[in-house]
C-alpha cells in the first residue's frame, strides 16, 4: 500500500531531519513544567477529577450548561433567602423599616493579609477578596483546584505579554496575581516574570530590586540564575 505514497524530496527530507533534531527545552523550562505536573498530582489526588478542559469538548459543553444551570439555581436560592431574611428582620425590628443590604467587600478594602488567605489554606474569618466568578453566597473558601485554576488564569496573560515582549501589558496581571495570591503556587513564576518585565521596560533599578527580593524569597529557585542575569544585564 505504501506504493501509493510518493517519497519526500531530498530537500524536504533534510528539513525534516533538522526538525527531528530539535534541541531539548532549557532545564529551567523543564523544571517548571515538572513542578506544575507535580502540583497537579497534589491538587488532584483523584486522577478522574481533573478533566482536561480541552480534551472532551462535548463533555465541556455539557459541563458549562450544568454549571450555568447550577449557578442560576444558587443565585435564585440566594436571592430568596436574602429576601426572606430581610423580611424577617423587618418584621422583628419594626423600627428599622429599611433593611440595608450588606456592603459588598471591595478587593481594595481587604486587609493586606487577605490575599494570602485566598490560597488553599483555611481562610480566616472576616472579609475576603475573592474572584467575582468564584465567590459563593456563603463566602466559602476556594478549593485547591479552583485556586490553582484561577492563578493560572490570572498569570496567563502576563506570560503571553512577556513572550511577545509587551512588557507593560504584563505588569497588570502580575500585580493582580500578587494582590490576590501573594503566596500562591505560582508566586515564584510571577516574581520571575516581574523581573523580566521590568528589565524589558528598561526599569533596571526596579528590576534589580525585584530580583533581590526574588533571591531572598526563593533562594533555591531554578529560575534564580536567569532572574539574576536579567537584573544585571537586562537580557
Amino acid at each position, binding site marked *: 500500500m505504501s506504493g501509493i505514497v510518493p517519497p519526500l524530496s531530498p530537500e*524536504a527530507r533534510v528539513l525534516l531531519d533538522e526538525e527531528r533534531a530539535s534541541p531539548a527545552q532549557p532545564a529551567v523550562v523543564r523544571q517548571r513544567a515538572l513542578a506544575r505536573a507535580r502540583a497537579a498530582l497534589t491538587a488532584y489526588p483523584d486522577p478522574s477529577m481533573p478533566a482536561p478542559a480541552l480534551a472532551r469538548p462535548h463533555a465541556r459543553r455539557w459541563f458549562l450548561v450544568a454549571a450555568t444551570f447550577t449557578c442560576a439555581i444558587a443565585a435564585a436560592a440566594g436571592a430568596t433567602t436574602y429576601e426572606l431574611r430581610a423580611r424577617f428582620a423587618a418584621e422583628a425590628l419594626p423600627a428599622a423599616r429599611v433593611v440595608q443590604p450588606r456592603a459588598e467587600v471591595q478587593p481594595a478594602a481587604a486587609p493586606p493579609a487577605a490575599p494570602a488567605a485566598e490560597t488553599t489554606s483555611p481562610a480566616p474569618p472576616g472579609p475576603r477578596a475573592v474572584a467575582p466568578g468564584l465567590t459563593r453566597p456563603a463566602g466559602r473558601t476556594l478549593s485547591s483546584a479552583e485556586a490553582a485554576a484561577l492563578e493560572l488564569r490570572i498569570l496567563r496573560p502576563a506570560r503571553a505579554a512577556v*513572550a511577545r515582549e509587551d512588557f507593560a501589558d504584563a505588569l497588570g496581571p502580575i500585580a493582580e496575581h500578587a494582590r490576590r495570591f501573594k503566596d500562591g503556587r505560582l508566586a515564584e513564576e510571577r516574581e520571575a516574570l516581574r523581573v523580566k518585565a521590568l528589565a524589558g521596560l528598561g526599569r533596571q533599578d526596579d528590576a534589580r530590586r525585584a530580583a533581590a527580593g526574588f533571591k531572598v524569597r526563593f533562594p533555591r529557585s531554578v529560575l534564580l540564575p536567569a532572574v539574576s542575569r536579567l537584573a544585571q544585564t537586562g537580557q
Partner: protein
Amino acid sequence: MSHLRLIASAARGPTPDESCLAAFQDELDYVWRTLRRLGVQPADIEDMGQEVFLALRRSWGEYDSSRPLRPYLFGIAFRLASAHQRKRVREVATGIGEVLDAAPGPDDALESKQARALVLAALERIPLPRRGVLVMHDIDGVAMTEIAKVLSIPLFTSYSRLRKARKELESAIRRQLREGGGQ
C-alpha cells in the same frame, strides 16, 4: 499486621502517579515538540503540555506498558491540539519557553533555527488531520499501522492522508522558500 502492611507498602513499586510522572518527565521534550508541530503556539505550549500530562494521568490505567509510549502520547497531544485549534486565537509570540532562558545554546545555530522555522511554517499550511499523520510518520518514524490505530482511522485513510500531506508539505516548503519564509 501493621508491620506486614508497612513492609508490603515499602516493597511496593512506584505508584501509578509516580510512574506516570516519570514517563512524562522522560518524554517532556517530545510532547512539547509534538504540540509545536501540531500548531500549538509557543505561548500556549506550557499549558497544553500540562493538559497532556493530566490526560495521560487520567488514562494511565488503560495504557499498555508493553507498547511504545510516544505514539500513545501523540494520540493525546493530537486530540488536544485539534480541540485547541478550534478555539485558538492567533498570537505572535516567542514562547514562554524562551522567556527566562536567554542563554545562548545550540538553538542559536542560525541555520538549524531557520530550517526548523521553515518546517513549522510549512506544517502550519497542512490541515491538522493530515499533518498529524505526516508528523508521526515522517518525523517520528512511527509505522503506518500504528498511526492508524492511534488516530482511530482506517489504514487506507492514513496512507491517503500521508500522500496528500507530503504533497502539501513540498509545495508549502517551495512557497516558503520563494517568499523568504525560511530566510
